[in-house]
């Protein structure tokens, strides 16, 4: 398993546990927008940011709270690997 695969697995596990409980039929592809698919709302964004900071031990700056960084599994993996890489 590559480091990026590891990041992806942790993110997917978190999203399934926190945002998709009771909605197991919801398919989550790596490129799907969390906001457009309605998986995560504005409170969910805070929960996601908090999880990433705790799990990967870095601080997300306010100007990094963007869809380009946080709005899909693919974007998150790219952002996190850049921050911890």
């Amino acid at each position, binding site marked *: 398993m590559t480091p990026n695969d590891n990041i992806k697995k942790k993110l997917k596990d978190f999203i399934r546990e926190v945002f998709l409980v009771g909605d197991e039929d919801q398919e989550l592809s790596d490129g799907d927008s969390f906001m457009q698919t309605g998986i995560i709302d504005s409170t969910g964004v*805070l929960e996601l940011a908090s999880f990433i900071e705790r799990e990967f031990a870095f601080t997300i700056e306010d100007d990094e709270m963007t869809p380009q960084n946080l709005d899909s599994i693919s974007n998150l993996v790219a952002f996190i690997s850049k921050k911890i890489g």
Partner: protein
Amino acid sequence: MKFNKESLKIDARLVSEQLAETILKQVRVTLKKAGAVVGISGGLDSSVVLALCAKALGPDRVVGVMMPETDSSPDSQQLAQALADRFGVQTVVENITPALEGMGCYRRRDEAIREVFPEYDHTYKNKITIPTNILEKETFNFFTLTIENAAGETKSKRMPPSAYLKVVAASNLKQRLRMTTLYYHAEERNYAVAGTGNKDEHCQGFFVKYGDGGADLKPIAHLFKVQIYQLAEELGVPDEIIKRVPTTDTYSAGSTQEEFFFGLDFYRMDMLWYAMENGVPTDEAAKVMNLSEQQARRAYANIQRKIDGTEYLRLPPLEVQSKQSGKSGKLM
């Protein structure tokens, strides 16, 4: 459709006449109530609703209820009284601070704030804001807590979810207690409660479910804020209310509605939202609004996110039994 800078202009005289007719029918015929109570804060929306109710029902069948608390702006009550005097409407003042203290509103909120800023105490003011640069940057609507000490020095930090949820839950006690108070005064007189939310608040979810969202009628919930300004002028709402910057009147450091929730000034937000609703392409909307297409696209996306993300606020309680069938019995 043709979209231009006048697209949200209304015939304020005609609209106010139509709204008054509707209010009269809703209150007296549909709800079978003798009048209306309106919570008045000295803000634009509640002022317009009070004026419309007075026009519709007669001033002697309307009561304006002022419900200040510790964090309210001192101007609010004075402006609300000036408004009621202008329209000849009776007022009631209910200071809700003791009840909020009894419910632990301030204590619970302060404990949550101390999770972010341990030094916070009653000498500080506080507010919550979201990014207000939504045209300049694609951004999520995350929440920042700002505290201000007696010397006016401020500190800001993005809120962790637990603290954010606690602060909001505690602060929402204010709106829910106001709703309870309004219903007391309504039921005591066999009146209806007239809600004061506009379209911006109603559709983007800037209200508290069963708080300020709890009412018997919502006469301006279909109108954009910029149209409420036009009605206010037509109805003769005092100038100092029309010129006042809209605030939440909930957080002690004076959070404007733009920085607390909308992230954009009302004119541009309402115009771009109207364009989006009516299928105006972003390049066309951008041209009319002197923006880049990317800026218009960001505004469309931000507004749509708020509408989608707050859908649950507008849902009635979910029932298992179908309302259409009206049959009892099987759950599945």
